[in-house]
């Protein structure tokens, strides 16, 4: 690396250390928050928000995504879309179904070992 790039790079290193500390704080925060009861949906939301922020820090700075090239952004953009599509559409299809109109009664005899369990 050239001498003139050095100070700029040292700034990057300061950023990395800052991100490291933020990640540790985020970890402690997410644990602390989990002990407070925000309701079922609330706790999940809080945990996911903190996780997303931490992930963004790792991806953005450690993985240099803040200054990456367009083709990488494009690939990751489509990947994110397809992942969300998989998750959302699968959950939606499990939720959207006609209701059973006839009650199901189980009249099957008791358990039998099915596999050779170790």
């Amino acid at each position, binding site marked *: *690396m050239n001498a003139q790039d*050095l100070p700029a*790079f040292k700034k*990057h*290193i300061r950023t*990395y*250390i800052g*991100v*490291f500390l933020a*990640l*540790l704080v985020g*970890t*402690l925060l*997410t*644990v602390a928050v*989990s002990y407070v009861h925000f309701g079922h949906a609330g*706790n*999940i939301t809080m*945990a*996911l928000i*903190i*996780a997303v922020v*931490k*992930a963004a820090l*790792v*991806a953005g700075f*450690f*993985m240099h995504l803040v200054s990456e*090239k367009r*083709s*990488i952004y494009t*690939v*990751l953009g489509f*990947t*994110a879309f*397809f*992942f969300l599509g*998989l*998750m959302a559409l*699968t*959950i939606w299809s*499990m939720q959207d179904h006609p209701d059973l109109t006839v009650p199901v009664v189980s009249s099957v005899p008791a358990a039998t070992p099915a*596999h050779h*369990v170790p």
Partner: protein
Amino acid sequence: MDILYTVEPREDTGLFNAKVGIWLFLASEVMLFGALFSSYILLRVGSSSWLYGAAKDLSVPIGTFNTGVLITSSITMVMAWASLKLNDFGKFKLYQGLTVLCGLLFLLVKAFEYYGKFHHGHLPGTHTFYAIYFTLTGLHALHVVGGMVVNGYLWGPGARLWETDPERFTNRVEVAGLFWHFVDLVWIFLFPVLYLL
């Protein structure tokens, strides 16, 4: 004819080949772990008796500690690459070695956790929560092992490339780093999802 852009980036894309390759591979890994996370959601939402809190037999302090270990390994990994960019091979050896050790520590803690569960009779077949727990963390652990093998190689025999082609070696460390950070990234989601929620 030579294969171009193995070290110097191509002008219009601004990337060298291995960087394109590793990001493509990581995209596929996003889909892999994404599918497992989606499965987790579906199994939990569809379950009539999921496991919560103490019933999970998961130690939050141990999980938090392990999270810290991986985060530390991430900073040491990026510092290893930065040391090479700053031409400090000695520092690289130090940081890369620390990265591998952190990975080892993570696995040891995980092994301890697994042993504890088996000891308490919690097997993958016992409950679907354990099924997805062991699968997610097991697959993640396999990725940690893979990363450690690569990082160990780059610390050891692979480091000889620094003498003949330092730029190419630096790129290799960067690419290995990208994989390692991804492994950390997956854990950043695994930890709260499995341990806290």
